[in-house]
């Protein structure tokens, strides 16, 4: 389909720049993007008849990664070696 209507996973690397140009960065556009991403994730992993641990575990893993990244400056001080 046309470039502006394709989801991000179907955009090829060369077209990424053009694709970013087509999306709206207004608050409404960002909110719509977040809403779409969340609803597609839910539809794929959570709103199924026989789900597994995968749906929630991926969310928890993402939460762990994010919190590690946000606290990195503080954790850097507990390194074991000075030079790597």
């Amino acid at each position, binding site marked *: 389909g046309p470039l502006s209507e394709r989801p991000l*996973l179907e955009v090829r690397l060369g077209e990424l720049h053009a694709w970013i140009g087509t999306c709206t960065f207004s608050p409404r556009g960002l909110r719509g993007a977040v809403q779409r991403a969340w609803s597609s994730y839910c539809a794929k992993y959570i709103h199924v008849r*026989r789900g597994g641990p995968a749906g929630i575990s*991926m969310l928890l893993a993402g939460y762990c990664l994010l919190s590690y990244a946000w606290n990195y400056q503080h954790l*850097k001080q507990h*390194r074991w070696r000075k030079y790597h």
Partner: protein
Amino acid sequence: MLSRLVLRAAPAALRALPPPVAVGVLHTTRPLHTTQQSLAPVPPLPEKGGEVRHGLIPEEFFQFLYPKTGVTGPYMLGTGLLLYLLSKEIYVVNHETAAAACILAVIVYGVKKFGPDVAAFADKLNEEKVATALAMKNEAIQSLQTAIEEEKKEQWRAEGRNYLFDAKRNNIAMLLEASYRERLLMVYNEVKKRLDYQVAMQTLKRQKEQDYMIQWVEKNVVQSITPQQQKESIAKCILDLKALSKSAHAAV
């Protein structure tokens, strides 16, 4: 009243405006129910979610790397990434690492052991919900079906209305006949009573006339008997009696 005037003038005024403006100005003139209903029936939920390997990494990632690196590619990538993070201490090993390891172990053990039971329980709950909804739907359909059958039966019953009307017509005819005959009898009785009265009057009159005449004749006769005639008739009677007694004596 003025509002009614305005309402009546509104469509005429709208027709004067060009069509797109008119449609935008008064929303009640737009056509309704033109799109297809897209809300029902709701499509059923998919049976299984997206494939995820080791509970963390979606299968699409492995498929994405398979053409270039084969089956072991993602694992090599993971190992290399892990060693890089550890060696450069981008991931710092501290007390939280130990805690995370213990928690992960417990979680994995719990999921592996109790996962199927919890899944079965949740499935049973879902089944019950779906079963109640289905039962309600079936009940509604059943009741409507019986209502349809009842309606058909009533329609069939209504077809027999001709018999009913015939019976009623017969009844009414009989009633009419009976009342006619009753009245006929009444008329006959009344006329007979009047005629009887007339007859009784006539007989009474004749009787009274007869009686009066007899009385009058007797009175006159009694009056006309003079004393001399009375003496003569008494003497005659005595003579007759004597003659009779003689003949009676003779007979005996």
